[in-house]
């Protein structure tokens, strides 16, 4: 009796990868899921930052999809390796700092490595020709297969009929006639297939799964790179760009001002890494200072912090400045008015 073939599916948590995996499972193939954590994923940890008390945390869609499919999911930390993809993408960026094509090549390559280490037979993705303007085009499909090294062990079940036969099809591991020929940006075929499989709850496809597709986030990352003079980053940098108002009054320092209680709690965790400020005379935000401010700059930082607190209309607001080594000092400032804060300060 022939040994059961095994496929590893890239699971993003969206509908397409869910349908691709299910399509192959329907053919009696054993499927396990892989999900890569780059640090820029919208899924997961970001939900927690602005989590309000008593509100149920959002689910991790990749885990949820795996549970719906009844498959194992392996979440892989690729934060360090992903830096090369983001800092110097061979195929360039999309509308913002999203290196979608290089990212897909990277992930399929990683899936290929996992495949070999775990004795699986082929890789499946939820790609659809024409679905995404940068990475999911007819021209990019062979580029991904070739440059990832996956070649014809990469099967795209949702659009396979529009592509050359792959190894699993040629060898008869999967029946090509039961695969799909989706193309274009319409979501209708996916919706219909979801209905056929009985999936009535799934993550909405709009919005993307990566912060790098977001213009505001990308501009903060550009600002970070420009002011540091290099493009390297740590996970904490990536996390902090997702939180608070980012205000750069001078080139040599930037403020991160919390917008609500969840962000306040999150930023508290960085008080030993950055100079921090908070109002003592009124309720107000917590501010971190990234850079090397002098005494005059600290006063300006206090005025900006006070502008976002309940003392914004007061003549004087008292603040405490805390340095990473534990030293503290107090400040008395008059809050800036909105008119005193030029638009160029806002990153």
């Amino acid at each position, binding site marked *: 009796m022939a040994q059961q073939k095994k496929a590893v599916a890239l699971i993003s948590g969206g509908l397409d990868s869910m349908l691709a995996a299910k399509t192959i499972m329907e053919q009696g193939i054993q499927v396990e899921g892989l*999900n890569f*954590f780059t640090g820029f*994923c919208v*899924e*997961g*940890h*970001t*939900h*927690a*930052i602005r*989590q309000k008390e008593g509100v*149920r*945390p*959002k*689910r*991790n869609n*990749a*885990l*949820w999809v*795996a*549970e719906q499919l*009844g*498959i*194992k*999911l*392996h*979440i*892989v*930390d690729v934060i360090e390796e992903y830096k090369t993809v983001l800092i110097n993408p061979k195929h360039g960026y999309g509308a913002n700092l999203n290196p979608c094509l290089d990212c897909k090549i990277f992930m399929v390559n990683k899936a290929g490595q996992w495949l070999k280490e775990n004795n699986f037979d082929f890789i499946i993705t939820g790609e659809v020709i024409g679905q995404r303007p940068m990475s999911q085009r007819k021209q990019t499909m062979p580029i991904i297969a070739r440059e990832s090294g996956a070649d014809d062990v990469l099967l795209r079940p949702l659009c396979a009929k529009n592509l050359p036969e792959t190894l699993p099809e040629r060898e008869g591991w999967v029946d090509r006639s039961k695969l799909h020929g989706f193309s274009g940006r319409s979501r209708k075929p996916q919706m219909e297939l979801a209905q056929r499989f009985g999936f009535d709850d799934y993550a909405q496809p709009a919005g993307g799964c990566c912060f790098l597709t977001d213009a505001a986030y990308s501009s903060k990352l550009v600002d970070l790179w420009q002011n540091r003079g290099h493009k390297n980053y740590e996970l904490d940098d990536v*996390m902090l760009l997702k939180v608070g108002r980012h205000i750069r009054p001078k080139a040599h320092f930037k403020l991160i001002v919390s917008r609500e209680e969840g962000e306040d709690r999150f930023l508290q*965790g960085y008080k030993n890494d950055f100079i921090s400020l908070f109002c003592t005379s009124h309720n107000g935000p917590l501010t971190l200072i990234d850079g090397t401010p002098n005494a005059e700059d600290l006063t300006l930082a206090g005025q900006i912090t006070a502008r976002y607190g309940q003392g914004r209309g007061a003549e004087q607001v008292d603040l405490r400045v805390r340095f990473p080594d534990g030293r503290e000092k107090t400040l008395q400032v008059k809050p800036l008015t909105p008119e005193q804060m030029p638009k160029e300060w806002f990153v």
Partner: protein
Amino acid sequence: MSRQLLNARRLLCPLPVIRTQDKVKQMQPGDQLEIICTDPGVMQDIPAWCRINGHTVLATDTQTGEYRIILQVGDNG
């Protein structure tokens, strides 16, 4: 059977799940792992990860202001 501790404080999901997954890979079926976290998302994500990978959540606790989960590694751990 051994019992191990994983400190996943300050990590936000899915990192506590990834750390749990990596730790469990080094453990034997029947072993127990106690995970201590500060991200409330773990109360949803780690039990989901356990369900799909065949592990059992033995206990959860939120009384200390942190989130504590004790799991038992499954047979295919």
